């Protein structure tokens, strides 16, 4: 097809050719083509088949308001051909067809539409019951548009940006551009978002005069130039607004050009004030077969010619309801399109200057006429026009029907932000009311049509946004308001018209193949709320969302009701306003995890790492998943564990002790210098949430530890539970400041004494002692003698930057004993043998301190401390029906250990196994379980129901804990 050349409005570069592969054939176009314009220029009329009836569908709006032109591009389905620029080498395929869009074997579905009334799927396939599981498989296959391969990878880089702004303007048409210039003049930070790749909006393609000698497109470019020169305006072109939230949070995404280093990027802006100048889209005309390829909206036909240099067809009929239609007819005629006639649904009210221009070109003009039926099996052949009463009819041959009922404002951003939409009889628009504070609407969306008034309304909104930012522009605002009042206000819109139709295929929603007959059916069944009709018929729930159905559905429903108290109510607008790739939302999605100071050496030592909340930790270092060698090394020799993730805190100040008394169940007044003190924290339900050790560093100055999971929340927790007290204390989270090495095993002392400057004998540094040492005279170490794994062990807290050196020094010192790493799995078994609990493992949400047998830590006498959880601990202390923690061994020592999490049953579930492992030290399995109180007595049999056990229960018996070294002499040696 020949391209129109030399038009000043063109946005393509005819000098540079591009090509794509479509359906296996190569097609050529020019730089600046979208997939849709390139294919259209090459003669493609049927782009796809519809979802339900497989009706042929073609180019309709050029703005992606329906799935009509959805194609598969480079294995990515559901790509809208209308707003996807051609890249060289693109491979485009049609989708949702069995065959080709031209010859689709599923086309017979269109003949079956009588069998598919609204909601038909609720009434069939369920009788007999066995039919449904078979039917469902076929339904799934026929549903859906494009298909996606499970291993397809989307190419390109996806990024995000959070630019800061004072004023954010949505839409760079004449109103938006004027608003931006007004705000920028006050030195504010302005952001302008425009969905098209260029500025200008609906000025951009029109040659009608703005002022004598100044066509609209030139005026648009003039404004654009001013904007590009303003230093404090950031312009985001090709950027679709997708969300608009309270407190002026705007989200959008920008498509990258070849010069950008992103394919698409997510844009999120929090602005002080927002101007919405999104203009209008056209509302579809309702008539029989209004979806036939060859039928398109005014802007589609006009922009196709003016922006891309493609004439829509050879012979066109216009059935329009707005002056833009007449203007387009005149312009397209002059560009070479033969026009059979122009029908205008309005009987009067068009610009009187326009009909004479039609007459001058011998184009018949039919005011008060409208398209009633489109003919042609696949593509348009002719059109029946009728007057509004349906009495007179006339047919016209054509290959193009420009059909448009009028305009409807793009109110999505305002509605998402909380504005209500009210029907306005004058404009025929759903106009926003109750617009949130610091948000303004401007331009054509208010019904303005005079170009000067549109620009001025933009300027006014821009100034109001300036005022929102606290600048005194009141006088200027009044001046502009007066000026605007003198210009023409909102124009009268065309009536809502449904052409007199005898047939059944008048589509309210293209994506879901919903006809006005379906709406009638739904209403007869009792669905009388537009929102419910939408759900029942699925009108407006397809890829274009409310774009096609949004205006006509509520008006049709109101019209059918003919009830005077019923206002047309549009359905709820939902984000995203434009379908948005998950890749774009996800952006770079940086993985952020925490590493301990010896992370690299743990990995180098063969550590199998796993995520533990934000941290990465080593689970084990040997291939054997039970970590036997690591366990035995600790029991018989000496091992080192990286325990740096433990929470570590300093708390000091006059009221520090009071704060500790509030959150710890024990009497923290007993915490002294040189010794470690173990205690636990409960929540208000008396359930254990944390345990750790504390020591006193100086007067009113304490150092304490928490479990890894609680490190991030402990400061908050203490402050929360003292929030009404106004106590004077200070907390510092030192979790990351110190690395922790647990040096454990009978040879631990022999290793440590080689490197520290102080005495580490049992007498000088006894169990539960706290000492500060220097290693090699340089590394300060806080050492604690604790016994979590049940052997002689030292927990060494060392400034994180020294941690790797200390680790290396200990490894070197331990070389003679073959010192070795151990990981979390080994630690888990070691502590299990000692009957030491890990919270979250031996406890659940509802487990109290009493339940895990640690009730004795609770000091009930410190009433004045108002310890968190004390009330609940008192109320539950004698409750024998609760789950209790017990130790168990298998009745047959040769049996294997039950798997963690297995329930304990006796008629019903009575508890579950928390942790169970084979104990290499005891040569039999041991475990801990939470069981109902009556099972907690020593020697009671526990029957364990493992998953997939096929009725074979495992038998265990309750035994006292600890299993290993019950007197604790090994950790005290």
């Amino acid at each position, binding site marked *: 097809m020949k391209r129109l050349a030399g038009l000043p409005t063109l946005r393509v570069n005819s000098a540079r050719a591009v090509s794509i592969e479509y359906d296996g054939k190569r097609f050529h176009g020019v730089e600046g083509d979208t997939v849709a314009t390139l294919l259209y220029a090459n003669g493609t009329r049927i782009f796809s088949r519809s979802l339900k009836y497989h009706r042929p569908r073609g180019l309709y709006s050029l703005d992606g308001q329906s799935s009509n032109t959805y194609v598969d591009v480079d294995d990515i389905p559901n790509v809208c051909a209308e707003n996807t620029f051609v890249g060289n080498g693109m491979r485009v395929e049609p989708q949702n067809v069995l065959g080709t869009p031209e010859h689709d074997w599923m086309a017979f579905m269109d003949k079956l539409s009588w069998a598919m009334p609204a909601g038909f799927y609720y009434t069939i396939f369920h009788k007999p019951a066995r039919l449904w599981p078979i039917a469902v498989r076929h339904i799934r296959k026929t549903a859906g548009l494009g298909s996606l391969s499970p291993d397809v990878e989307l190419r390109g880089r996806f990024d995000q940006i959070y630019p800061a702004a004072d004023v954010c303007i949505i839409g760079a048409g004449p109103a938006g551009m004027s608003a931006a210039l007004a705000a920028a003049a006050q030195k504010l930070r302005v952001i302008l978002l425009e969905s098209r790749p260029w500025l200008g909006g609906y000025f951009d393609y029109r040659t009608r005069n703005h002022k004598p000698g100044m066509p609209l497109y030139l005026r648009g470019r003039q404004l654009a130039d001013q904007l590009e020169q303003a230093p404090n305006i950031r312009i985001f072109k090709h950027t679709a607004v997708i969300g608009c939230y*309270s407190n002026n949070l705007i989200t959008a995404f920008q498509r990258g050009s070849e010069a950008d280093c992103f394919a698409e990027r997510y844009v999120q802006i*929090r602005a002080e004030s927002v101007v919405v100048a999104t203009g209008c889209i056209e509302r579809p005309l309702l008539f029989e077969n209004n979806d036939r390829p060859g039928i398109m909206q005014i802007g589609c036909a006009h922009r196709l010619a003016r922006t891309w240099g493609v004439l829509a067809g050879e012979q066109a009929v216009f059935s329009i309801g707005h002056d833009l239609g007449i203007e387009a007819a005149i312009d397209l005629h002059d560009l070479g399109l033969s026009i059979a006639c122009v029908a205008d649904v309005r009987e009067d009210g068009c610009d009187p200057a326009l009909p004479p221009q039609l007459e001058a070109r011998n184009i018949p003009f039919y005011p008060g006429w409208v398209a009633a039926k489109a003919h042609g099996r696949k593509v348009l052949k002719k059109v029946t026009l009728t007057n509004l009463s349906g009495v007179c009819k006339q047919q016209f041959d054509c290959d193009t029907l420009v059909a448009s009922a009028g305009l409807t404002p793009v109110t999505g951003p305002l509605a998402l932000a909380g504005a209500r939409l009210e029907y306005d009889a004058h404009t025929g628009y759903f106009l926003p009311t109750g617009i949130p504070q610091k948000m303004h609407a401007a331009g054509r969306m208010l019904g303005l049509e005079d170009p000067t008034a549109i620009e001025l309304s933009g300027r006014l909104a821009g100034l109001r946004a300036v005022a929102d930012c606290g600048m005194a522009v009141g006088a200027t605002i009044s001046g502009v308001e007066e000026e605007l009042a003198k210009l023409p206000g909102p124009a009268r819109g065309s009536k809502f018209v449904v052409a007199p139709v005898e047939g059944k295929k008048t589509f309210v929603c293209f994506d879901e193949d919903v006809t006005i007959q379906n709406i009638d059916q739904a209403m007869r069944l009792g669905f009388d709320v537009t929102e419910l009709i939408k759900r029942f018929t699925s009108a407006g729930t397809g890829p274009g969302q409310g774009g096609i159905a949004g205006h006509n559905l509520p008006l049709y429903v109101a019209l059918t009701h003919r009830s005077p108290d019923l206002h047309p109510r549009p359905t709820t607008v939902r984000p995203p306003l434009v379908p948005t790739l998950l890749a774009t939302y996800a952006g770079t999605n940086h993985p952020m995890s925490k590493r301990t100071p010896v992370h690299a050496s743990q990995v180098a030592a063969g550590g199998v790492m796993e995520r533990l909340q934000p941290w990465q930790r080593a689970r084990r270092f040997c291939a054997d998943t039970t970590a036997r060698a690591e366990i035995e090394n600790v029991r018989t020799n000496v091992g080192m564990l990286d325990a740096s993730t433990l929470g570590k805190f300093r708390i000091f100040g006059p009221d520090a002790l009071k704060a500790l008394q509030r959150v710890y169940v024990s009497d923290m007044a007993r915490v002294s210098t040189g010794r470690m003190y173990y205690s636990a924290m409960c929540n208000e*339900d008396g359930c254990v949430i944390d345990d750790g050790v504390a020591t006193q560093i100086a007067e009113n100055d304490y150092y304490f530890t928490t479990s890894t999971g609680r490190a991030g929340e402990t400061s*908050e927790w203490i402050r929360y539970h003292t929030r009404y007290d106004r106590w004077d204390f200070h907390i510092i989270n030192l979790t990351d400041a110190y690395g922790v090495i647990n040096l454990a095993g009978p040879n631990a002392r022999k290793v440590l004494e080689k490197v520290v400057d102080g005495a580490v004998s049992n007498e000088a540094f006894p169990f539960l002692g706290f000492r500060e040492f220097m290693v090699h005279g340089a590394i300060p170490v806080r050492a604690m003698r604790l016994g979590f794994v049940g052997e002689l062990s030292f927990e060494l807290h060392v400034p994180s930057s020294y941690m790797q050196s200390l680790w290396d020094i200990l490894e070197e010192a331990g070389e003679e004993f073959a010192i070795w790493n151990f990981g979390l799995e080994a630690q888990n078994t070691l502590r299990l043998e000692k009957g030491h609990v890990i919270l979250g493992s031996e406890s659940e949400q509802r487990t109290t301190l009493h339940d895990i047998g640690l009730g004795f830590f609770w000091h009930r006498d410190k009433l004045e401390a*108002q310890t968190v959880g004390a009330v609940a601990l008192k*109320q539950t202390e004698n409750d024998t029906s609760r789950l209790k923690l017990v130790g168990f061994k298998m009745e047959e020592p040769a049996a294997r250990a039950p798997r963690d999490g297995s329930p304990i049953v006796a008629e019903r579930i009575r508890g579950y196994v928390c942790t169970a492992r084979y104990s290499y030290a005891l040569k039999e399995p041991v475990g801990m379980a939470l069981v109902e109180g009556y099972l907690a007595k020593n020697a009671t049999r526990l029957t364990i129901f493992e998953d997939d056990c096929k009725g074979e229960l495992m038998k265990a018996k309750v035994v006292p804990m600890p299993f290993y070294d019950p007197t604790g002499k090994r950790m005290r040696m």
Partner: protein
Amino acid sequence: MALTITCPICGKRSGYEFRFGGEDKGPPPQAAGLTPAAWCDYVHRNNCVAGVQKEWWCHRQGCGTWFSIYRDTTKNLEVAGPQSEDV
């Protein structure tokens, strides 16, 4: 919806920087003689106000301060209150 919360230290920020700390129910009742029902009432039960309520928030991703604000739960917007406190 995009909640903002005004931290007394850091100013207006995205709501996601904060932790919600519950309806403001005042200091806990004295433990002595507290019935299970009265205890439960303080700890678990809420007014679930559809309207303005006073509540605690912590600027956990920022300065760490606990403070109270008033918020309209039907609009999810912070509103001006008689006074707010911080600790």
